[in-house]
């Protein structure tokens, strides 16, 4: 990836551009200028991606349900995001009379800030990360965790029972699925031996023949990838885990009482969270910016990163178009009785993998353990229990 040939130049074009802009400033300011440029890049690229994704989602969902999707605004409905944006900006901002004004106002700001911060550590291309931190992965999850509090703030400050219910559901769900989310990434950390995201990508950037060394192509990596995907879907409140905003039950959940631009901020934050979690999944399991085949490394690394993220987004949309919403008890049972134990087994398997050394044997042993666990836990988990008589433990 080094040298002065054309692919490498294109690959590093944004870095070169940043350096070029920065060299107009006195040397004391150069790092700050470079950082500001990076921040501008993040703030412009990902919301742009948001606009595209919303359109893709609406069109894709339509096609999955044998509909056209939006096709009125502009050619093939391409300007739909613009129309949506104008609509959101021109709507009246209604704050409920009894709402806790300060908290109600702060919640979307904190949420959006926390979500944007997560992008700072994502390596979107070779050498293209805003902060190369030793504990980058931890930073990412810390930011994800702080968004939970703002969700709660939004739901509580609205003084609306639906908002509060939505917030309680959201927080309970996010806490439950954060555990497997962290544990699955611990598997990657065990394999790499580092919490730094660029290091994790570099560890996967090699090739055997033409095949890449992505973690998803190892038995425990694959299992962890699936579990991570499930937990990520729950963490971003996407269908089938969209109980916190189940519109048939609690209107829009914790942002029921938000309107106009604040509503748009929640909407954007939700999609940005989806991008950042897709980005982290790409980084952890799919080799980040690394090309899928060794002969494809001529294509710039940032292209691969965004291509993989968009694949994730498509799967998110696909699942939303397919799966019905879970019930609250199913949600909790699934998290604590299937995902978490399976992830723990996976963690042990990763340890076994590390200590068995190279060879075909560890592939067989690890795969067998994981498949057996999956089958047994799937079998026992599928047993449908009869409903117990309804109890009103908390109703008094």
């Amino acid at each position, binding site marked *: 990836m080094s040298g002065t040939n054309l692919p490498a130049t294109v690959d590093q074009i944004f870095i070169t551009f940043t350096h070029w802009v920065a060299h107009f400033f006195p040397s004391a300011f150069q790092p700050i200028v470079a950082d500001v440029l990076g921040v501008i890049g993040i703030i412009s690229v990902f919301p742009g991606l948001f606009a595209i994704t919303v359109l893709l989602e609406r069109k894709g969902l339509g096609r999955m349900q044998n509909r056209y999707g939006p096709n009125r605004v502009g050619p093939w409905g391409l300007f739909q995001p613009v129309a949506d944006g104008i609509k959101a900006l021109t709507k009246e901002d209604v704050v409920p009379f009894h709402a806790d004004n300060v*908290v109600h106002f702060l919640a979307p700001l904190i949420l959006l800030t926390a979500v944007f911060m997560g992008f700072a550590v994502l390596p979107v291309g070779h050498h293209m990360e805003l902060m190369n*931190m*030793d*504990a980058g992965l*931890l*930073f990412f*999850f*810390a*930011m*994800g*965790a*702080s968004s*939970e*509090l703002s969700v*709660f*703030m939004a739901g*509580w400050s609205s003084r609306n029972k639906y908002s*509060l219910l939505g917030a*309680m559901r959201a*927080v309970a769900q996010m*806490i439950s699925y*954060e555990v497997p989310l962290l544990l699955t990434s611990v598997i990657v950390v065990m394999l790499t031996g*580092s*919490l730094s995201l660029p290091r994790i990508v570099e560890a996967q950037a090699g090739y055997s023949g033409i095949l890449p060394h992505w973690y998803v192509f190892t038995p425990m990596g694959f299992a962890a990838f699936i579990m991570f995907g499930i937990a990520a879907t729950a963490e971003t409140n996407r269908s089938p885990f969209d109980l916190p905003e189940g519109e048939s039950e609690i209107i829009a959940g914790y942002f029921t009482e938000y309107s106009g631009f604040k509503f748009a901020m929640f909407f954007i934050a939700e999609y940005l969270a989806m991008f950042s979690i897709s980005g982290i999944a790409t980084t952890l399991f799919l080799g980040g910016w690394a090309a899928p085949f060794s002969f494809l490394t001529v294509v710039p690394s940032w292209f691969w990163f965004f291509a993989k993220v968009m694949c994730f987004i498509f799967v998110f949309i696909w699942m939303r178009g397919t799966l019905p919403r879970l019930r609250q008890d199913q949600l909790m049972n699934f998290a604590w009785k299937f995902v978490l134990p399976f992830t723990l087994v996976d963690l042990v398997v990763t340890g076994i993998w590390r200590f068995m050394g190279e060879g075909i044997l560890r592939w067989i042993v690890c795969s067998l353990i994981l498949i057996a666990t999956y089958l047994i836990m799937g079998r026992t988990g599928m047993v449908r229990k009869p409903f117990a008589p309804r*109890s009103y*433990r*908390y109703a008094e």
Partner: protein
Amino acid sequence: MSPVFYILSIVTIAGGLAAVLLKNLVHCALAVSVAFAGLALLFLSLDAQFVGFAQILVYVGAVAILVVFAILLTRGSDQPRESFFSRTWGIGLVVAAAVFAVLGWAVLQSSSALPRESAVPVASVHDIGVALVGRYVLPLEIVALLLTAATVGAVIVAMHEKDGTR
């Protein structure tokens, strides 16, 4: 360094004070999380990345949420009827001062806290990991066991009602 330190200190102290003085319990909980975040930023300004992020992840992400949940489930979130400030703020201040005194005493007594102009220790994540499962593996395991026991105990407490009297 120093202006950053002062800003963060003010934020942290303000958060702590608000947590003690405010009337509405949920506001208190939110103020506590501000204090937690301020502490985390203080750690970060000392280049202790791992501790700082762990502080945010555990305290802001989990502890504050649990506190808030506990408040909501015990109906502590009702609107305050009288003054904006808590009536028990005096007692709160006394308790806080007592805790502060104990902590300050402990810090002053410890030998490692003496101001030494030695090289700033750089604790990378790797070093922390090695220390945790190397030198401090026994305390770590004991804490883990304790927490597991607590979890099991909590489950038993919660399960008791189900097949019990009612």
